């Protein structure tokens, strides 16, 4: 029925969705994912709002649907270098970085046991370390280890090589470039967290207890750095009073001029995490507008009833650290009372916005708008957060919708 395969760039929830929906239309599909595993951002989340259900559940179903498909292939650690050709007949150059681990790997973990070198775990947003040879996360797909050669300690290589009974480690692997000939491209490279250090007055990186919303998500995750507990980085104590800084970077001409869609909801979710962990805890949410569109309003109400939240309409523009206690002093104007207030809290969570992953990159054949979001053109269809800031459900609507457009180019 279809002449050419479909290329899906990005293996996050949007990419996976698009790929499977297309594959189940009996089209051949190729996924190109930059990281060593599929799953993307949602694999880093503990729960989705508003149901507070684990994203891994949906991933499991999707993986299972993929596994049953012979017509779907996946390249990990691969990046699209350039796109040329015409709709229905694209030539796509893809660079594949070496994993140094071949398909022999059974993920038995013997190598990691003997490996001494460590590396910062980007999945935990720097809150933890992994061995130089590591499994990205428990829902990794493919379920296979990765070797970060630069992180190896002296002697590690021999140790891990001899620990592996299956000849799965190949330090000689080289970077390769392949060219794919595809009929259409669905662009699902998703988002990255805005760099909080660019917002100097929030002290992220300078003050131990100023953390990002995604770091909270990792801490809350049972597979995260703190086994599911939200703790102050400075002393590992459970925070009793936490300030949430909304629009940290978003709706800001100096940073991200647009609204990132999910931060308000994510923060409400985090207040519920806190309430679950420490019923006495108090959350202070400093906002400009609480944006919980559609049925999410119910989740807003839920958070208000289940968590102990104080809402302050006013953007935080000053955060100071109390040297002694490492507590933080957060200043904002409460625009309703018209008074300027300063609150002492144990931890500050920056509700950081989303930036398109491809922002700042130039990929021949791809058009980006001023913010770095991918613009649609004949046969190249952006979906999810590569298209615009979105939640998961809407992302998957765009991803599913893109497939029917793409199929027209494959015939």
């Amino acid at each position, binding site marked *: 029925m279809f002449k050419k395969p479909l290329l899906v760039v990005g293996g996050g929830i949007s990419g996976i969705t698009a790929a499977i929906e297309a594959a189940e239309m009996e089209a051949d599909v190729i996924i190109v994912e930059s990281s060593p595993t599929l799953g993307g951002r949602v694999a880093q989340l503990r729960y989705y709002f508003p149901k507070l*259900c684990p994203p891994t*559940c949906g991933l499991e179903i999707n993986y299972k649907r993929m596994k049953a498909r012979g017509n779907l292939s996946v390249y990990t650690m691969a990046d699209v270098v350039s796109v040329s050709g015409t709709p229905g007949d694209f030539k796509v150059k893809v660079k594949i970085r070496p994993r140094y681990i071949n398909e022999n790997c059974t993920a038995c973990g013997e190598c990691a046991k003997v490996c001494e070198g460590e590396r910062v775990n980007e999945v935990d947003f720097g809150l933890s370390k992994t061995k130089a040879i590591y499994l990205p996360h428990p829902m990794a797909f493919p379920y296979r280890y990765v070797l970060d050669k630069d992180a190896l300690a002296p002697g590690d290589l021999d140790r891990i090589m001899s620990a592996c009974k*299956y000849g799965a480690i190949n330090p000689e692997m080289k970077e390769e470039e392949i060219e794919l000939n595809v009929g259409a491209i669905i662009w699902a490279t998703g988002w990255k967290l805005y760099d909080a250090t660019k917002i100097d007055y929030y002290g992220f990186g300078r003050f131990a207890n100023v953390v990002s919303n995604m770091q909270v998500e990792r801490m809350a995750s049972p597979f995260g750095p703190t086994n599911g507990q939200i703790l102050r980085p400075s002393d590992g104590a459970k925070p009793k009073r936490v300030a949430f800084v909304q629009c940290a970077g978003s709706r800001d001409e100096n940073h991200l001029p647009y609204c990132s869609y999910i931060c308000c909801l994510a923060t409400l979710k985090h207040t519920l995490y806190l309430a679950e962990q420490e019923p006495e805890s108090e959350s202070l949410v400093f906002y400009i507008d609480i944006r919980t569109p559609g049925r999410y*309003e119910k989740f807003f109400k839920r958070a208000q009833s289940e968590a102990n939240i104080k809402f302050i309409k006013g953007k935080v523009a000053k955060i100071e650290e109390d040297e002694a206690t490492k507590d933080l002093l957060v200043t904002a104007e409460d625009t309703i009372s018209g008074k300027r207030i300063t609150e002492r809290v144990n931890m500050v969570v920056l509700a950081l916005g989303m930036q398109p992953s491809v922002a700042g990159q130039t990929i021949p054949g791809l058009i980006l708008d001023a913010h770095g979001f991918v613009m649609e053109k004949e046969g190249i269809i952006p979906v999810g957060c590569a298209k615009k800031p979105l939640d998961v459900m809407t992302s998957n609507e765009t991803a599913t919708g893109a497939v029917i457009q793409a199929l027209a180019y494959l015939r």
Partner: protein
Amino acid sequence: MEKIGVFICTSCDIGNRLDISELEATAREQGVNSVYSSEFLCSKEGREFINTKLKEEGLDGVSICACSFRVNYDVFNFGKVAVDRVNLREGVVWSRFPIGENGEILDDSVEVTSGVAFKDELMALAKDYIRMSVAKLRVYKLPVPYQPEEEISKTVLVLGGGVAGLTAALECAKLGYPVILVEKEKELGGFSAKLKAQCEAKYPYTQLVKPIVFSLIEEVQKNDLIKIYTGATLTNLSGAPGLYTAKIKQGPKEEEVKVGAVVLATGFKPYDASTLTQYGYGKLKNVITNIEFELKAAKGDFTRPSDGAPIKSVLFIQCAGQRSDEHLLYCSSYCCLASLKQAKYLREADPESQAYIVYEYMRTMGIYENFYKTLQNDPGVFLTKGKVLEVSEGTNGKVKVVIDETLFGEKVEVEVDLVVLAIGMVPTTKDEAILNLEYRQGPALPELELFYGYADSNYICFPYETRRTGIYAAGAVHQPMTIDQVIDDARGAALKAIQCLTAIEMGHAVHPRTWDFAHPEWDLKMCTQCKRCTEECPFGALNEDEKAFPIPFLTRCRRCGTCFGACPQRIINFKDYSIDMITSMIKATEMPEQGYEQYRFLAFVCENDAYPALDMLAYQRKSIPVSIRVIPVRCLGAVNVAFIKDAMSKGYDGILLFGCKFGENYQCHFIKGSELANRRMENVQETLQQLALEMERVTIDTVAIDEIDKIINKTNEFVNLIKSYGENPFKGW
């Protein structure tokens, strides 16, 4: 299967912790054709080895005793040969350890009960799994894809001729699928055809543009694959996906057409503003809704309703009757943009005019923030957060609005010519069963109340997963949304509709079990017409004939096995999943004699959440009691009470069931699987009590895929509790 081979892998600690030769012996005892063990079975060589043996010995079923079926699924796939995976790695050697007082892992040689080393129990577990696997393969039959006798209709029925419906129709037609488009109004276009303008649905999102619906109408009318019925409604939809018969009433005449799948795009109705008396609607002529203002503006009419005087000032009240306990509980998502847009209408019509917008939260999501900015820059647009306290008659026909909690820090009063209420959307599905399904379970989509009447999905990852196969909602009947989202959504629904037809053609289930070619089969000879299957099917897959016999419609079915679990007569079976299969698996296990303190527990776990959780627990080398045997099931709804009875009489000391969360935010993709199981087990527990057994011997619990520690605690608590009760007295009967 006739000729069964057992292949045991010795790698990944299996060889280290288990006595392979003993396992081989056990396998042989089961009377299989051949038993082999080798290391690294998932290697090319390993796979080659199995392949050659398959050919040499003409095996039709293999039991791969290695790792979880969740890994190496592609390696251990031998086409037409039935494969069963015995999970010795994750299920045994990586998740069963002797644990010391302070949680440390002890040596396998430690005694668990007098004269029994942990190693013995571990071996017993591994052996039982092999026995179960062989027993399973014996009764296992290769699935036969379902092919309906009647010809499958590839036509897509699209209900609603608005942006959503038109988009869906076009996308289907583009791929060569015939479409029948039904619109109840005389004209195509729906509400957006009545708009003066719409916010542009692409970067930079700052302009107002002509509603795109008009170009869509043109294209649809040009497309000869699309048959249009205007002024028409769907009066009846009978049959099943791929095989529907739709009765379409157009004026006096009613027509019957064959359709395969349905896109539901009937949009919304404005909220009934007559209930908004607190804003003076109905009392004051110069208080109107945003819908009414839009229609006025489209006509170029900017005069006051009361006296036709030109409108110099308008105040927009956001969230009128929304986000409110008395009215709509939700946010309609479009109103902030709409009011900004309408403010622009006024300002463009009269540069001296003034537009006030009073909002609680300005919700211009994503890059629509740009549109907000554009309007902010207009000197004649005055914005403030605020709560409207009072709307009343002002001087000379004006309307007086009192606002509290403003950014001015004080209550303010503004007098304007016109007040516009930003009212919400109500999905058309809220009050009428638009689909008029001829289903035993009723004419409409079930559990709409969960979503305020929207034809929405309960699953964040799967926006089109509803309880009626082959029917996919799009646009403002799906979720509250703006036009740019409607377009994507309509494409999505269209894709799901034609994808459903592909699945039917291929003979496999639709999402979530798209890999499943098996399907339930009824042996009606023994049916007692108890109606359990027809009532409990979450997807309304069954109708009943006049004698209350079930009439299955397999293209509606999602293969969850709820009917299978419900049937007291055990007459519903799948080729690859049957009462016979599970009971013989249970029977195959070895039950120690009474009095030796060797407890045995059985756990039925949900394949999608609990079972992966067990795997992940294994990857962290955490431990659950060695006395538990795990049987994965497609859904707890597919656990027939017969299994429990068999297990208890076999002598199992306790039975655990792990399913998904139920209740308002249920996570079961088969809707009520775990909930139904829960109800069934309550009955079982009564029976237990009648037999003077502790009801806790059968315990059901819910775990999510990430709740590893919960599983560990629950299993240990359970085992300890039952041990405190003592062994099952029926052991060894």
